[in-house]
């Protein structure tokens, strides 16, 4: 476990260096900027809460990406699976209005998970049965999901007034418990933390997780040991989409209370570097989600006092991912090159 976490910690330290360099490169006063970011994230109670709120969807979706990528499924359809999950959650909430909240609330989550998972399964099925590249199919499915989402907002799920393309606000009883009104801190944070532990347990403590990882590392070796890799790739993809759907449901029930355009906030794409810099390890993903959540919250604070927006995060993410994978590839190559190469 320490071995898995060390690279993640290293990556996060590297990220901080990248942050400093970025601030300098953009010519911002370093000390002041860092203080604003610190105050807005880990340096104050309010900042801590904002960090947790921002980290929650990143954590869930980062976990989703990690599970799929571990199985060798380059899922970049997080965006679509997130939207599918959002529709699943909202649809369940709409259908189940007559059902007591105690029952309907879990069902809303289940529905979000299942819709996200099923949507991801389409891509997995296309690969397993038809050999369609997952990257391409998930890109296409993202567009399908966006259109589906917008259609739902003007059609079956549109608000009763029928004026704006958005859903009705959910009844307060259905919403997640809020610990803090001002900072939006809600109990969905706990769901994300539990998900980290559950995904860790599945991937590293169960035969199922072992087979998922083996299927990703070398499907031919899995097959030679009579473990059908396609089955585990399907399962991993369903879990991945499910986690994205769950993330959407948590956002819906935790923060927005309704669906409208822009609900996805490009989380599907931000989640990929979160997963990569977390070394595709659930605990690493948890850590890197908190880091990026903090950076998100901190740069919001920074944005209040300068023209320098939350977008700094993307620069840092992009640069850090390249540096990280580059260094790792060089190290790995050195390690394997010492050994035999089969002729």
């Amino acid at each position: 476990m320490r071995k898995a976490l060390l690279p993640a910690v290293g990556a996060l330290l590297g990220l901080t260096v990248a942050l400093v360099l970025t601030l300098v490169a953009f010519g911002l006063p370093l000390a002041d900027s860092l203080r604003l970011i610190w105050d807005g994230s880990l340096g104050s109670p309010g900042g801590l809460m904002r960090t947790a709120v921002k980290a929650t969807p990143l954590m869930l979706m980062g976990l989703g990406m990690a599970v799929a990528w571990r199985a060798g499924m380059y899922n970049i359809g997080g965006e679509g699976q997130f939207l599918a999950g959002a529709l699943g959650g909202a649809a369940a909430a709409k259908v189940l209005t007559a059902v007591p909240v105690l029952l309907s609330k879990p069902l809303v989550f289940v529905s979000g998970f299942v819709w996200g998972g099923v949507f991801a399964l389409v891509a997995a099925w296309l690969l397993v049965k038809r050999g369609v590249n997952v990257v391409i199919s998930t890109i296409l499915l993202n567009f399908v999901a966006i259109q589906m989402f917008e259609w739902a907002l003007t059609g079956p799920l549109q608000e009763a007034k029928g004026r704006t393309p958005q859903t009705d606000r959910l009844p307060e009883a259905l919403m997640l418990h809020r610990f803090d009104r001002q900072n939006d801190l809600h109990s969905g944070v706990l769901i994300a933390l539990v998900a980290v532990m559950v995904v860790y347990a599945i991937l590293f403590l169960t035969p199922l997780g072992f087979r998922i990882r083996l299927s990703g590392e070398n499907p031919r070796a899995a097959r030679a040991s009579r473990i059908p890799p396609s089955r585990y790739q399907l399962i991993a993809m369903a879990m991945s989409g499910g986690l994205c759907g769950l993330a959407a449901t948590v956002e819906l029930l935790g923060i927005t209370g309704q669906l409208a355009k822009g609900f996805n906030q490009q989380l599907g794409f931000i989640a990929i570097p979160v997963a990569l810099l977390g070394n595709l390890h659930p605990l690493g993903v948890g850590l890197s989600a908190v880091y990026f959540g903090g950076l998100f919250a901190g740069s919001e604070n920074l944005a209040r006092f300068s023209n320098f927006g939350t977008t700094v995060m993307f620069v840092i993410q992009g640069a850090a991912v390249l540096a990280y994978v580059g260094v790792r590839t060089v190290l790995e190559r050195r390690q394997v090159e010492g050994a035999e190469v089969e002729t």
Partner: protein
Amino acid sequence: MSALLAILMYATPLVLAALGETVVQKAGVIHIGIEGTMLAGAFFGVMATLATGSPWVGLGVGVLVGMALALLSGVFALGLSVDQVVVGTAVNLFALGLTRTLFAMRFGASGELLSVPKVPSWQGIDVVMVLAVALAASTHWLLFRTSWGLALRSAGEMPQATEAAGFSVSVIRYAALAFGGATAGLGGAYLSLGIAGSFADNMTAGRGFLAIAMVTFGRWKPGLVLGACLLLGWLDGLQFTFQAKGVELPFQLFLALPYMAALLVLAGVGRGAHAPAALAVPFRRSR
């Protein structure tokens, strides 16, 4: 006529990027980073035009920025054999963050109304539109009727055969990436300089990914890719026509059709829809 020209104009950034990506994918590389490349082309094109007053300089800078990002991707994806999806994702984030941040720093967080001289047009036609259409014909010629095209396609199907024929797979793939970067950068610059006459945050709005989808839908054939892009533009326009006429239709489902069709094509409903066999597979020369 003018309606057709409008479709072509709005589709031009997509056409340029998709044709470039066709060449890149035919060489065996999937370049997800064209979304960010387009955005960077759009932004730096506008900045260069602001500085010089000439949209032509802006277009040129767009091309250069696109090539620079493509070569950066090449260093990681080809030189280090880092997964191409990872590299592309990083490039996208980097470009998105960079353009947003620079834009906000220069013009304020809200983004003051920015206007630059547009690419001059004549009767609704401009040079870049003509170039986009001509590019479809010339990439087809390049891919299927020249020595380089033959070598490039073999690198996307079976790189060992390319090397056996005496070519360097690596050189071919770098060249393809540079071409794809140039067209994506130009497409982005045209978006801001030819269509909008301005820059807005994240103004590409997924067009790069759309281009990748159109490459698939057009089955990696330049003519069909052009057709796919125009079809999409037409469907998009139809939406507003219908809305103006007050017709109630679930348009979004209609707009999802091309993507579903592309998926069906890929799933093998139509034969000959094969992606290049070595797509996204790094090649390392054996010694």
